[in-house]
């Protein structure tokens, strides 16, 4: 005999299910779920499965988790040593901390540059907005890799910047800009700035200007109106933009590999080393799983916190 509270839960579940199964609605809702399951859930399960296996010399280069022994006994072997290794060696935590650091600073810089840009675009003549937005999106028409390579040409010792400064007589020796932390920040901010500008523009352009007028009428100067009206109202855009920059920047591999120096320790590079130098797919997979856990957990907590804040 189910308890009353359990009954209530069951009832709710039944109602939810019925709602869910309403023909049109169910189909529409299941599309993104199917997408997530196919392109996020399934690959994640495969990675999680590799992270619990052992290295072997073979194709594929990791052991099977389940095998049917000759005696007909089903054997399941899970290897947690890979995750232990991540704890024991400070390399992985260092790399993770450094990645988070680089991504946070880059996100902040993107916000500082992107916010005035987005705000500016909403304040210009209507006819100029679309061309300006096009200019933000235009770099995507060139391959990401080519754009990063272009920065190598600009930053390197006998590259554009050094040559121009030297011909102006401002410096005598070529600058060592390439293969530095600075170059990594520059590359990430350059590559991800549009991801900050677009969501910010989307929220800012929907804002009602009457609110600013009301603030002015109530004696709030423009700067005060900006801090007390514009910024709080654009918070969803700030959060969306920051997540869109921060999350991919943490796992970024191409930019630190091409623009960074050998002392730029980021988790993407550590993953590469595990995969290519050590041929240790299981440890590489564990790094990926741990990274996901460390990244997704704060994001989920944050979402929950925000939802609660909104409902109150």
């Amino acid at each position, binding site marked *: 005999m189910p308890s009353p509270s359990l009954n209530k839960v069951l009832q709710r579940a039944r109602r939810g299910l019925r709602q869910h199964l309403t023909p049109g609605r169910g189909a529409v809702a299941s599309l993104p779920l199917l997408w997530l399951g196919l392109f996020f859930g399934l690959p994640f399960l495969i990675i999680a499965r590799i992270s619990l296996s052992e290295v072997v010399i073979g*194709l594929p280069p990791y052991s099977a988790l389940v095998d049917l022994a000759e005696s007909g006994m089903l054997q399941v072997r899970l290897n947690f040593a890979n995750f232990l290794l991540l704890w024991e060696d400070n390399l992985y935590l260092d790399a993770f901390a450094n990645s988070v650091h680089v991504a946070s600073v880059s996100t902040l810089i993107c916000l500082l540059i992107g916010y005035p840009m987005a705000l500016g675009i909403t304040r210009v003549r209507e006819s100029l907005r679309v061309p300006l937005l096009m200019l933000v999106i235009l770099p995507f028409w060139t391959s990401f890799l080519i754009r990063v390579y272009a920065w190598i040409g600009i930053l390197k010792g006998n590259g554009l910047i050094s040559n121009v400064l030297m011909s102006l007589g401002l410096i005598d020796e070529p600058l060592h800009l390439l293969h530095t932390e600075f170059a990594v920040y520059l590359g990430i901010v350059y590559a991800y700035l549009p991801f900050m500008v677009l969501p910010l523009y989307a929220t800012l352009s929907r804002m009602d200007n009457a609110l600013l007028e009301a603030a002015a009428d109530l004696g709030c100067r423009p700067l005060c109106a900006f801090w007390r009206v514009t910024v709080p109202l654009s918070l969803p855009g700030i959060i969306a933009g920051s997540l869109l920059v921060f999350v991919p920047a943490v796992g970024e591999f191409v930019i630190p590999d091409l623009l960074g120096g050998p002392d730029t320790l980021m988790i993407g590079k550590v993953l590469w*080393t595990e*995969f*290519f*130098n050590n041929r240790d797919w299981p440890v590489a997979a564990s790094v990926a799983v741990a990274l996901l856990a460390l990244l997704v957990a704060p994001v989920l907590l944050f979402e929950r916190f925000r939802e609660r804040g909104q409902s109150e």
Partner: protein
Amino acid sequence: MSRLPLIGLLAATLVGANIAAAEEPVLHVYNWSDYIADEVLQQFQEETGIKVVYDVYDSNEVLEAKLLAGHSGYDLVFPTARPFAQRHIKAGIYRKVDKTRLANYGNLDPVIMKGLVDLDPGNEHVVPYMWGTTSIGYNAAKVNERLGADAPKDTWALMFDPKVASRLADCGISLIDDPTEVFSAALVYLGKDPNSTAKADLDAATALLESVRPYIRYFHSSQYINDLANGDLCVAHGYSGDILQARDRAVEANNGVEVVLTIPREGAVAFVDVMAMPADAPHPENAHRLIDFLMGPEVIAKISDFVGYANAIPASLSLMDEAVRNNKGIFPPQEVLERLIAPAELDPAAQRSRTRAWTRVKAGR
């Protein structure tokens, strides 16, 4: 007129059509960068009508990861025999070579073939392509200016002795970005077994590398070719043929840079790169034809002339440029040959320790 020849002709046409239908005239090759002469590939395409789709890599690790993932789509790859092809053969990822399809198989150097038997019993899976050493290339004028013309150059001290390396740092020292290559060189410089897995040896080599780390400009496996040629780099740890290509490019550019290849007296890693077909190669028939083509003495002599590596076809020697044939960096004298070392296959734990130490050297943590 007898009808028999006609039937024979018809049959032959049918068989021919059959073979052509079995395999489209395409071949996917994955080889090291700067490791073939373009004219040779063109000649092959003209003679056979097979279109070669040619991709390049600059590290065995990248090739290996693609092969171990399976379904690489490549028909012919060029791994280094030790420890890479050795491990791949153990993992069973290569197709056996059908020697009956290789008319030029008898051209191969029996000494090199015998040297490969331990990793490929019966020489069943791989065919040697080129061999060389991982040595030192340096800019003669710049190094002489800093160390003096009489200072010894045929030594790893150029990059591993802090007193010497610090004097060369301003004009640039580069190391290959590969723990196996660098640790083998560092261990042999310390007078230890280059394949040692003992912790004390690894620690000593790591300490040595850390002591010269401030003087190393970068770690890369192919960038040094251009930089040596342009005079942007003083000393490079590099593959012998690549260093010779840098020398040739400087001569072509007529920029006054003289690049010299030297095999260090302490010893150096010798490598044999082999040709192999992945087990799931879509066009094995065409791959066999290219392997056979590359064993032709005239063809391989042209490649050796161009890339600066010795090959496995003794009959090609007399067909090479005299400058290549007499180059002691390509064909080392006997006493140097005796000091060359073969990298052994490390077990995963030893490999991990080396890679970890390598990260520590490069990143400083």
